[in-house]
Structure formats: C-alpha cells, structure tokens
C-alpha cells in the first residue's frame, strides 16, 4: 500500500529573497523512501512541505528535482508553516511529499500561440512551464500578463527579465507609485490584467491556442469569461486553483470542488472541466 502520508526528508540548501516576504528555496531530497516519482514531476504539480512541529502546506515546484535530487520552490510568508520555514536556516531538515496532482496539459508543447495570465503569487506554478516552453521551442509566441497589487508585491522580476528576450510581458499594478519604473522592458500599466487583455490578445496574429491562468479566482474568472467572449474555446483555457490541503491524496476532503478533489483532479483544470464541477458544487 502506498504510504502517501509520509514525507521524505529534505534539506534546506539555500534560499534567497525575492521581493517582500518571498523567497526562492532550494531543497535537496535526502531520502526517496516514501515517494518514488520525484523525477517524473510535471510542470504545475505540487508537493506538500512538512515543517515538523508546525504543519504542512502545498507548494509548486519552480524547478523539479534534478539528478542531484535538488529542487526549488518560491515561497511567500503567509501563515504558520511558511513563517516557521523562514525561521529555519540552511542545513536544517524538513519534509516533503509529492509530486501530487495534475500538471499543465502536455499538448501545450505543440501550441504556437500561448497567452499566460498570472496574478500575485500565481506566477510561481507557471515558472517551470515557462522555462520549459522557452527551452524546448523556437517559433512560439508567448505573451505573459502579470498583475500585482503594487511594486513591493511583485515577484520573480529577475526571472522575468530573462524571459523578456523570448516573450512579451505586460505588468499591471493596482497601485502605481511616483517612482514606478516604466522602462524596465516591461509594458507597465495601472490596473488589472483584465485591462490589458484586449491589447495582449490583439498582439497575436490569430487567437492564442492556449490560455493559462493562475492567480486570484476572481481574476481568473473574469479573464476566462472575456477570452471565451473573444472566441477562445473553453477547452483551450486552463487554470490552476489554490485550495487548503491536508492530505494531497484525495482523502481529507479539504480541497473539494463539487464532487472533485483539487489535489487529485487538479490543481490544473480546463475551464470546461471546471464548469462541469462547479455545476455540481
């Protein structure tokens, strides 16, 4: 029987800050006793981080486990588990279980036109995917809209600068301060991703063949609906949902969405799937 409840031990090997209260963590798997699929991790899948004496919380991989058994995650300080992690130093041992859930659709590698919309921390689950897309293909057009509340809460700026060579990036901020930098290569706008959506869409020759969304649910809903209104089929829109999780294996019930469990059938869903679950929600 699979002991999916038991973490493997991981060591914190490094971390560095990325914006306020956010850090890139680098971990190394010390054992692979309880989970055997670490090296098959798909972009968009997640793991459960276990900080002993505090608890567990789900995070996506920004870089999946490599041959040295190292992997990365971008972690924002939110509540008890993350605060406790931020207090730990390099070399300390915590736990991880995974990978869990369904990642972004595989077919995406074949797509030519891709629109990605992320809000706040919602960019983290997309990093691995964007990196893969950039590395594996030429001749693709990728447009990213990234929205945040204000400059302080933007994340992954260094990473995004690297992407700028290959993809178009729009930034939106709810609040723009006097000294906001408009000339960093990003197209900066005061507002929300929905406001730049028309502009982004019209930058494609035809409609994007995939739209990927991750961020606050209100934002995803509005983008999805507008995109559908512009003629993008429901089956081409994918999003990644956030839910409270305890077990990550479809047992504890916390991540339910209608009759489905986000930890198992998600966290990525097509808009069409999601509508059918919501009608049973």
């Amino acid at each position: 029987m699979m002991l999916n409840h038991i973490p493997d031990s991981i060591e914190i090997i490094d971390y560095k800050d990325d914006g306020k209260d956010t850090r890139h963590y680098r971990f190394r798997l010390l054992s692979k006793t309880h989970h055997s699929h670490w090296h098959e991790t798909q972009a968009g899948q997640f793991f459960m981080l276990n900080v002993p004496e505090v608890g567990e919380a789900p995070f996506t991989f920004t870089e999946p486990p490599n041959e040295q058994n190292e992997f990365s995650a971008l972690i924002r300080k939110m509540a008890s588990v993350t605060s406790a992690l931020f207090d730990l130093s390099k070399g300390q041992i915590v736990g991880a279980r995974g990978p869990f859930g369904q990642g972004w659709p595989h077919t995406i590698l074949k797509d030519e036109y891709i629109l990605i919309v992320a809000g706040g921390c919602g960019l983290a689950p997309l990093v691995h995917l964007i990196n893969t897309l950039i590395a594996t293909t030429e001749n693709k057009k990728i447009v990213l809209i990234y929205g945040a509340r204000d400059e302080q809460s933007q994340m992954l700026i260094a990473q995004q600068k690297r992407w700028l060579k290959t993809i178009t990036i729009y930034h939106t901020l709810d609040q723009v301060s006097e000294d906001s930098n408009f000339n960093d290569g990003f197209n900066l706008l005061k507002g929300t991703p929905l406001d730049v959506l028309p502009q982004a869409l019209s930058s494609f020759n035809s409609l994007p063949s995939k739209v990927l969304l991750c961020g606050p649910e209100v934002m995803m809903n509005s983008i999805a609906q507008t995109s559908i209104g512009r003629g993008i089929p429901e089956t081409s829109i994918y999003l990644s949902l956030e839910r409270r999780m305890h077990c990550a294996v479809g047992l504890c019930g916390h991540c339910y969405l209608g009759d489905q469990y986000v930890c198992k059938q998600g966290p990525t869903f097509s808009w069409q799937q999601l509508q059918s679950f919501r009608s049973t929600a």
Partner: protein
Amino acid sequence: MVDDLISTICPYCGVGCGINLKVNELGQLKSVEPQSNHPISQGKLCDKGWSTAYAVTNKNRLTQPLKRIKNEFFPISWDEALSTIAVELNQILDDSGPKSIGIISSARATNEDNYAAQKFTRTVLKSNNIDHCARICHSPTVAGLKQSLGSGAMTNSASEIFDTDLIMVFGADPTENHSILGGHIMQAHLKGCELVVVDPRKTRLAKLANIHLQLNLGSNIALVNAMLHVIIKEKWYDENFINERCNGFKYLAQHVAQLTPVSVEAITGLKAVDIYQAAKHYSQAKRAMIFYGMGITQYMSGTNNVISLANLALICGHIGKNGTGVNPLRGQNNVQGACDMGCLPNVYPGYQSVIDTNIQTKFSNAWQCDLDPLEGLTSMGMTKAALAGDLHALILFGEDPVVTDPDQNHVKASLKKLDLFVVAELSMTETAKLADIILPAASFAEKDGTFTNCERRVQLVNQALEPLGVAMGDWQWLQALAKKMGSDQLNWKTSEDVFNEMTSLNPSYEAMTYQKLAKNHGLQWPCNNENPTGTRLLHANTFPIGKARLISVNHTDIDEPTDDEYPLSLTTNRLHFHYGCGSMTRNSPLLERETPPGILFINPENANTLNIAHLDAIGVKSRRGYIETRAIITGDVPIGLVSMPYHFKEAPSNQLTNTAQDPVTKMPELKACAVSVIPLPKGVEPKSIQQLLEGD
C-alpha cells in the same frame, strides 16, 4: 479495565447539555457524544460541546503546583504549596485582619467546590470577601428581578420553548452563546411559534424572526416603555393578573402615558409602527416567553433594563404560567450554582442575607463558629482594595479576569500589588502568569459533583478520568489548605458529603440527593418538601415578595456617545465556537481555525469609507486603550456600529470598553462605547496586546 461511556454534563455554557465521555481501556478520554435521552439537549451538542475532548486532554494542562521565583515558575509539591499559602495567609490574618484576604471562586466549578469556597472564606478566613464572575454577566438580573419578582433566576424552563406561542429574544444571541437552546427556539419557530428579536445586530435568530427590532444601542428602556404605552392604551394588558398579582400599575400607566412610540423613534431608531406591532404581538399572544442576555445587563442601566422587561411580562400576565416568563440566559455552566451556593459577598447559600442576624445565627450554629456580620467585598471591591493596599492576598480559581474583566489594566495592576496571589487553573492563563503560586485544578471530567444550569436544574457531574498529574478538585485542596491553617471546618470524604451539608442549609435545595438527581436527569430548584420533584415554573401562584412590583424606570443615554474623534459605537458579542477567555475552546484545532485571533465586525459601508478590505489588519482606539485586530466585513452590524468578540487574549475588547457602571450592581457598560477604527498599512500583521503594551 474496559472502555466505558460516562454520562455527565457539558462544562461550557448554562444550558447544561448531557454529554457522554467515552473512556478507553487505558482510562483515557477517547471522544465525546451527546446524551440521546437528556431532557434538554436530546442528543444534541454545540461545537463547543463536541470539542470537549480537546479542552480536557490538551497538552497545556497544568499537572503540578508551581511557585514563582522572580519571573519563572518552578514545580513544587502540594505539601509545599499549601504550607506556603497557609503560613502566608495566617501571617496576613494576624497582621491585617480577615478583611485583607479575598476569594474569587468560579462559575465553572461545581456547586460542591463553590460551597467549599464560601465556607472556607466565612469560617476559616472569617470574612465575607467571597465573589465570583457573575458581576460582569448577570448581576443586574439578580438585582432587577429580585426587586420586581423577588427572585433572580430564570422563571421558566427550557422545555417550555415548545409550549409557547411567541418568543421574544431581547439583547441575546442564543444560537451563538447557548446554542442548543437557540436551536430549540429555531425549532419552535419552524413549528409556528412567533419569533420577535430585539437586537442592534442582525443575529442568526433575527434573520429568521417574524419581527426584528434593530434598535439603537442602549435604547431598551425607551422601547419597552413605548411598548407598555401601547399595551396600556389599547387595553391589551391582563387586568385580572395585574389586580391579583401586581402592585404599582397606576404609577406605571402614568409614567408611560406620554411615552408614545412616535416619541421614542429618534432614541430607538425604530419606526413607531414596528414598536406598535411588536407590542401587539407580544401582548396578544396566548403565551409569550422573554429570553434576554447581556445585551440587557451589560449597560449602566442594566438593572433598570431588567426591571422594564419584568414590567412588560407582568402587565401582560405572561409570567407564572407554562410557556411564559422572563428568562435570563446566563453565561457560564455553573454561574447559577455559584450564586446559589452563596459565592457572593452579601448572601450565604440560598440567598440568605449575611446581615440578617437570625440567618447569621443559623449558619454560625451549623458551622459552629462566629461569622462576620458585615457584607464583604465584591470582586471589583477587591481590585480597588488591592490597589489601595488594603487587600493583601487573593485566591482565585477558574477565572481569567486579566482577559475577561472590564478593566484589564486596573486588574493587572491590582494583582501585581498583592503580597500573595494564588490561582487554581486548568492551564496557564494570562491571569495565572501573575500568580505567586499556581495550583493544578482537576477538570470537570475528573470530578464528581453538581452543576446548576440556567433553568435551575441541578445535574450530576460524574468522574470519568483520573485527574491529570497531581491535579486536584477545588474542595479537596481547600479542605487540605484549611487543615494546614489549623481549621477542621472543611471536613468531607466525598462530594456527596459536601452536597448533603449544603442542602441542609439551603432551603431551595433541601430535598435533593445524589440518588434523586441521578434518577431524574437533575432536579430544578426549589426542590423541598412541598416540591419534592423540583419546580419547573416559578411564581405560579404567588411571588416570593407576595405581589410583584411594577417599577417605573426611565431611559438613560449611554455614557459615551460617538463624536468626531471616536465616530463609531463599539459593542461586544460572542462567537458560538469560543467560550469565555478561550482557554478551553482555543485548544481545539477545529475551533481555533474558525477566525484569526481577534476580529472586529464592521458594516461594508463604514469599511468602504475607511478603505478597509475583508480581514485587513486594523487598529481600534477608544479613550481607554488601543488594540489591533482584523476586520470582518458584514451587513450583520448596522452602519455606525462595530462589534467585537471578547474571547481573544491577543485583542481583548476590554482594553477599549467603558468603565461607567450601573449604580446598583456596579456592572460596567460593556455593551457600548465610542471608538475609532484605522486601517493598518498593507502587509502589516496586527500586534497582540502583549506586544503593544511592551512596545515590541
């Protein structure tokens, strides 16, 4: 040993639901379940009841006596703890006399523990300096109903909720605070009983009610007087009942003659027609029951508020009959019992006055010692005396005044001034942290005894577990302490012995025995030779004072209206998933998850103006203090009113609340004061009061 299912009583609120504790073969508490055949709870429990196991078995329980040296606590033996206390108490008695020591017992402890506490105070310490927490909940009930009816308890019984035609809930939130009773009200309402709710907030019951009078804070008397006016003018009162059973009708009628509904529209914020309708429905109902809570008592006008409700019930004859009455909903599981046991500075067990010489003689004969002929200090009096340097020692059990008392900073300062401060508790509370000696108390699951619920039902509490560590029941350590002090006044072998001594001195408990309690699922007092199976309904034929008094009372404005600096009114409320200072419920991971530690309810419109989003961190300021917490945006509070639960030690509402008092009972006006609310910068966590005070 095998596993077993022990029937006992829920330790939380005054409803007194039947709960079963499932104990495994190792003697550990495994789980709880409701008692399906309990007369009140009938197989139900609220979320607090269901999570009892977390409160009893939590890892924060104190398991041995602790002594403070400087700022640290060190474990000591019972013998050392009690010897230390005994020596110091004797010293203080010699140096400063009996008046310099006080005892505050617990409305959560059993009747036996409370009886022992007052007897210890009166016979060992030789004063009447004994009190408990009722002062911040329901002292106006005792004072008000005593004047109007002659007795300060719930007049009717919970089961009568199903025998009435109209229920009027006044300043109470029973589904949150007395959930099972609240559930009964919902059930009765669904079956057709009319429901009228009077509350400034849209409570759960208000959302279901036929009539919700969403009155302005502190305008209860104005409303009731106008209702009286309508009822008298329309001749909807019960003339026979008034003639036979009441005095003072003529004056009351004169008093309210000009107080038309229109005249109170501005004060109450209600429309005259709504007041008229409520008066009509209440008075015309065949049977009507009033339930009220701290939205009545926690005002400067608390006692008068209670009196006005009594007036309303009396002139309509809605009292002394099945399915009627004026029914206070009391907070703690045994607050009724603590009062009945005489844990009050002015009365012996059974509300027998300490200054009545006949009664003094009765007790001094029974206890075979001289008794202090003067009334003692109230808990607030003790705080003051300690600050003034007149009170040197205080023993307190099962209470956390540092969190729950209206004047937190005062209390803290006064406790720090004591020469000896002893606390008996289940776990380390904010108050216990100030103690010189902490005694580990046994939980309700670890002792035998009785609790008296809000409908005067005395019910057996049965021991299911061995006390944790060396924890001890209160009467047991009080007895041991008395012995150490050289007194054998407290001399019992079992809880039943304590109970039997008490019943011999307390006329309303006279005919009760443990056997009878066990057989009948508890008995309601008075239970004496005339009513050997107890009394469901009080005042059926006469009032303890003969005829009831209709007392004319006037509306008084709340003490602290809003102004430019403090533009919002603050009131307090409770959450159904927490209890008191939270020291028990917050051990449950399930209940603790329900909210952030500390919240303020605010209307969307006010939140909008202040640029506050749901769950944003905010600061709340009054003339007395400042705390930080999080905003819950909800239309359940009207524009201009904010509301705050008092369970959280991180953000205690009593840093803010007013200390203006009811002149009769000294009940502070906890339900209304003026505050201002400011959003904290984004991303900033609210600081706990401890951090704020330490300037951290």
